[in-house]
């Protein structure tokens, strides 16, 4: 079992609901401070978005953040360098599209991510069926590969996905790309079905945008992923302190 999963399992055992905020690397010059602020605010892990030109699974907010990052000259390597200087105890999980890894080289990617303190990877366009190569390349590294489950995923398929996911399972609350939503979506059904086939920590994301939603969601899941809602305030110019208190509002709702 990779370190990420061990960490997150013991987090769950401690009775704490996981809070995983999402920060787009490079979207602002001080993004690493935002990461640190999120930690201070009570995050249990942080998703580090590595921008890609064609973010097929992302809504307008994260697209915009990615675009800004790219315009600032952000690259996989520049992000890794900035991560090197970031001091944190909690796990970091890279989130990007497969072409970025492919282009950098799969083994090289896994090694580099590990070197800079990343312990997991979410690659939404890397389907289970196409993941052999990456899993082989990252297998002997300590990078956990996190798969997503969607409301459209069949039960049989859930079993397979859950079986291969490492670290945690990303349960998508709705049929949508990243972005705020006002309703609860189908997270509860998805998680309850997953529970029958796996005991891996299961976090709900896609559309979790308020502390109240996070609270309700945490009742049936092991944690929540807060993406667009946080990225949005960062795009609007939030300071690290703003980020810290934003994250803390979720922390409070979860505890």
């Amino acid at each position, binding site marked *: 079992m990779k370190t990420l999963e061990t960490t997150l399992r013991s987090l769950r055992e401690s009775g704490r609901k996981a809070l995983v905020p999402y920060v787009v690397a490079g979207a602002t010059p001080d993004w690493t401070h935002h990461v640190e602020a999120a930690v201070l605010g009570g995050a249990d892990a942080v998703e580090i978005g590595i921008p890609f030109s064609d973010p097929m699974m992302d809504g307008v907010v994260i697209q915009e953040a990615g675009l800004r990052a790219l315009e600032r000259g952000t690259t996989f*390597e520049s992000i890794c360098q900035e991560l090197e200087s970031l001091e944190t105890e909690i796990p970091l999980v890279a989130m990007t599209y497969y072409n970025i890894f492919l282009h950098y080289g799969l083994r090289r990617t896994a090694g580099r991510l590990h070197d800079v303190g990343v312990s997991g990877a979410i690659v939404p366009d890397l389907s289970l069926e196409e993941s052999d190569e990456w899993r082989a390349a990252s297998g002997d590294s300590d990078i956990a590969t996190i798969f997503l489950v969607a409301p459209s995923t069949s039960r049989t398929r859930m079993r397979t996905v859950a079986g291969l996911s490492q670290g945690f399972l990303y349960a998508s609350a709705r049929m949508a790309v990243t972005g705020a939503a006002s309703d609860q979506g189908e997270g509860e059904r998805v998680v309850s079905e997953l529970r029958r086939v796996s005991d891996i920590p299961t976090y709900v994301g896609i559309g979790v945008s308020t502390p109240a939603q996070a609270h309700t969601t945490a009742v049936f899941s092991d944690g929540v992923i807060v993406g667009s809602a946080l990225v949005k305030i960062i795009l609007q110019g939030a300071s690290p302190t703003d980020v810290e208190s934003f994250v803390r509002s979720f922390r409070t709702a979860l505890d």
Partner: protein
Amino acid sequence: MDEINAMGQPDHRGHFGGFGGRFVPEALMPACVELEEAFRDAWSDEEFVALYHRTLREFAGRPTPVTPLPRLSQRLGLRIFAKREDLAHTGSHKINNVIGQTLLTQRMGKTRVIAETGAGQHGVATATAAARLGLGCTVFMGEVDTKRQELNVFRMELLGATVVPVTSGSKTLKDAVNEAMREWVTCVADTHYCLGSVMGPHPFPWMVREFQRVIGAEAAWQLKELGVDVPDAVVACVGGGSNAAGVFAGFAETAAQLYGVEAAGGAAVTSGSPGVLHGMRSLILQDEFGQVEEAHSISAGLDYPGIGPEHAHLADTGRATYVAVGDDEVIGAMRLLSESEGIIPALETAHAVAWMVREAGGRLPTGSTVLLNLSGRGDKDVAQVRAMLMEES
């Protein structure tokens, strides 16, 4: 070189050699699987196949003729025949694919299609086929393109479709595909994504090629009727690669040389490298960091930074050869075909013509028999070409 079944089925994961596959968000995986099953089922159902062919015949004007081009032949020292997709309904080969996909949509019990479009050809074709069957239709089109191609937007609206301007990324075709995929995630239960070329996740590259295979199949018997057993070369322009795949499919197992002509500014085979984009592993234009580059071509239909995975494979195995032609050669070729044969080709098609002009007596030896896939008519392009020529002078 394994010529037998050179353009058969991909493997069970949709791979053509090292390319293809299905790189999509988990939310779309079931839809891709469902589509693959529905297509397999339909394509082996005689009734469906008959309906598809009847619709092509009664509605879309197939078979399109093969036209000998005597005057161009004489000028170039070749024996040239043109497969006339410009005469298909809506003006290009695009209709073959959308008729297949909309009939399949109906068969799957879905009531709506979405599509991406660049210049609007595939969007107009999709809106057309959807209107014919009474399906809802939404077309995603980069905002830049909606402005460049106002008339095609209006055409789609006349056909009852909704056109959504895409404001993300470069606001062009590549982003329209992203946006259509994003939309598809939200409505996959009742909506089919009618992709416009041999690209995207499995089964699209295979399915679209099968729906375009009719081009090559017809051309093969039509050439025989004209006394040509097997042409020495088959030439087609390549954007995503659907017209090329369609015509190549009819000759893959013959001795014909297959040439795919890309736009120099969107030459995924000539200038690209392996990568993953829009659900497929293929050759794509990308920068040194793996960010996908925008294509730049005079011709909107070739303005795509990727290529269908099967073409990447055909290039890999050497069964087909891919070449590139620059914007500067294209207008002259358009004029040449117009003047010498009375056919104004689409700018996309003009790339293939330009390459023939360049290679007549070279890679196309004097006297050899060439089948040109005349993928579309140039009516959509004359305003643009006129404006360009006026600027120059």
